[in-house]
């Protein structure tokens, strides 16, 4: 069976981005010193055009290789948003970072649109390679090189596992399509499960779940904060998307339906991994002195919560659970971006530098406190609402134990979030506290404003429904 060829129009949203990639590289050729800003503008234009095309571009299509519109569009919009935040806030020299980012963005768009395991693999590769380089490229020094190397090898091992899983799957079913059938027609065999576990662990690696999380704190600590923001939002979302694609298979993935899981045995071990991830993330975060590393572990803790949301979703969830996952990822997008950008602007990386910062820069401190409150899940903030939806679905879906674990971990989380607020607000400024308040420029200020606005959406319990309708219109 020779698959029919894919019309180029399906890739309409991705073309402007590829164009921007090429444009950025060319910009680098012409003017040496102003190439950075020029590349950023081109990049941003490309991404915006891509997002615009997402809505007015190709109608809903579901070919053997790629999908367009529907759920895929929702995820791609999310990735574009994260990329825009990165472009608006990063200040590195040269056009390299912009080009690498756009390449990574293309990779993510491919993952979102993948209907075929091979496309998924190539998307994973295209997303990972530029990220390894960005970790070192943005701030070339010993620490970031070390982080990049660690990230490369861990990522390499993961994609190696993914590939091996893919080969087993291909050997078993003879097709690399992301569709139930083939080997499964004769019922779930051990080979299929092995294939899934290998591919699933690659997804878990990308997300930073428990056994695969060791690289994450080092990379967040050493890389630039805006990359940390980008990775903790977009790359994490891509990881979750892969996990969901693998566990359900695309056909039943679209909007509401949830017929038969490609790999039904996900339910057995996902709760264990999610509770382990939550607890490890929170416990290790309690002792951190480096703020970026702390945000890394907090991101791991949030991954634990999200994994339990994914568990409920795949255990027979409907649109609601999917909306919960989206809302949580959306909330994380704004919370993490806000927190990381604050660290970048304030030039703070150690907790001791945060001491008494409230008296030096009250408004910046208030912003960071709002972000921390949202990360910690204190009621009026969107973080609380996200966690509330997860606990709500868990209770509805019968995961009482998981709900209790999420609740307990949010108390653990308060231990370090509240501590930061205490250090910032209640302590006297130490000698290492930066003297003057941060001066964000236009782009970053806009991003920070959006983060602050999004953090206070805790008042509207219907926010999840609006998000779902927005994403699936």
């Amino acid at each position, binding site marked *: 069976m*020779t*698959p*029919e*060829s*894919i019309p180029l129009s399906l*890739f309409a949203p991705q073309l402007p981005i*590829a164009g921007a990639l090429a444009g950025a590289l060319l910009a680098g050729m012409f003017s040496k010193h102003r190439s950075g800003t020029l590349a950023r503008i081109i990049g941003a234009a490309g991404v915006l055009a891509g997002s615009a095309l997402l809505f007015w571009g190709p109608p809903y299509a579901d070919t*053997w*290789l*790629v999908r367009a519109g529907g759920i895929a569009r929702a995820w791609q919009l999310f990735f574009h948003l994260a990329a825009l935040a990165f472009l608006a806030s990063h200040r590195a020299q*040269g056009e*390299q970072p912009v*080009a*690498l980012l756009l*390449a990574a963005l*293309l*990779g993510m768009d*491919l993952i979102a649109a993948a209907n075929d395991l*091979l*496309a998924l693999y*190539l*998307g994973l*590769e*295209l997303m990972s*390679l*530029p990220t390894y*380089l960005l970790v070192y*490229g943005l701030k*070339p020094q010993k620490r970031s090189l070390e982080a990049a190397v660690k990230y490369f090898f861990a990522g390499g091992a993961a994609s190696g596992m993914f590939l091996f899983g893919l080969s087993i799957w291909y050997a078993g079913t003879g097709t690399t399509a992301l569709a139930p059938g083939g080997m499964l027609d004769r019922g779930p065999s051990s080979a299929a499960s092995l294939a899934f576990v290998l591919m699933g662990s690659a997804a878990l690696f990308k997300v930073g779940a428990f056994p695969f999380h060791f690289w994450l704190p080092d990379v967040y600590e050493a890389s630039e904060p805006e990359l940390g923001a980008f990775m903790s939002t977009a790359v994490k979302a891509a990881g979750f998307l892969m996990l969901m694609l693998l566990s359900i298979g695309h056909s039943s993935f679209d909007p509401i339906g949830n017929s038969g899981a490609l790999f039904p045995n996900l339910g057995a071990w996902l709760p264990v991994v999610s509770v382990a991830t939550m607890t490890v993330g929170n416990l290790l975060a309690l002792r951190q002195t480096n703020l970026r590393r702390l945000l890394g572990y907090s991101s791991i803790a949030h991954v634990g919560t999200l994994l339990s949301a994914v568990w409920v979703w795949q255990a027979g969830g409907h649109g609601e659970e999917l909306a919960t996952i989206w809302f949580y990822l959306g909330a994380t997008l704004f919370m993490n971006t806000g927190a990381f950008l604050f660290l970048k602007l304030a030039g703070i990386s150690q907790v001791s530098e945060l001491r008494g910062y409230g008296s030096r820069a009250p408004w910046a401190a208030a912003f960071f406190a709002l972000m921390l409150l949202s990360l910690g899940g204190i009621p009026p903030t969107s973080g609380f609402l996200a966690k509330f939806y997860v606990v709500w679905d868990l209770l509805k879906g019968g995961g009482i134990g998981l709900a209790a674990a999420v609740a307990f971990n949010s108390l653990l989380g308060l231990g370090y979030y509240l501590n930061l607020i205490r250090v910032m607000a209640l302590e006297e400024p130490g000698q290492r506290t930066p003297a003057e308040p941060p001066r964000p420029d236009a782009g970053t200020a806009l991003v920070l404003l959006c983060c602050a606005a999004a953090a206070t959406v805790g008042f509207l319990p219907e926010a999840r429904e609006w998000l779902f309708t927005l994403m699936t219109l």
Partner: protein
Amino acid sequence: MAATALAICGGCAVLFAAFALFQRTLYGSALCLLAVLLQVGAAYFLIGAPLLGLIQVLVYAGAVMVLLVVAVMSSPPQLNEPWAGGTAKWLAWLAVLAPAAELLSLLRAASGAPAALQRAPAALERQMAFLLFGPYAPLTEIAGLLVLVAALSILRESHE
């Protein structure tokens, strides 16, 4: 029959991989990797995908090995002194004997050319080529992009 040849190829690949693991020197491991790559190429050839075998030898054994050797040479000296010691001798013998054995088993089975070979491999190859640049065109584009990114990493290297 091709199966025995295939068995020898697979066996040698695994053997060389094991040897590579326990080599004290990087130089040794690199060479063992080269041997493994060649064996795998031979396996492709035997299985019935001669073009793939060729590409494997070209891309892997050629480009990647060269890079590896460059990296090994630029790493500190004590890791890459020339191959000496007993194991080197044995490996050399093995590297020679393995292809000979494969050829021998092929010829022995020459009466019936290897099943894969018979089935007009060219047709499969042609179909693959058609596929790569037809339906799989987007994926090849993505592979191209990957190579571009790799190039960027090297390009950046040359900036400073």
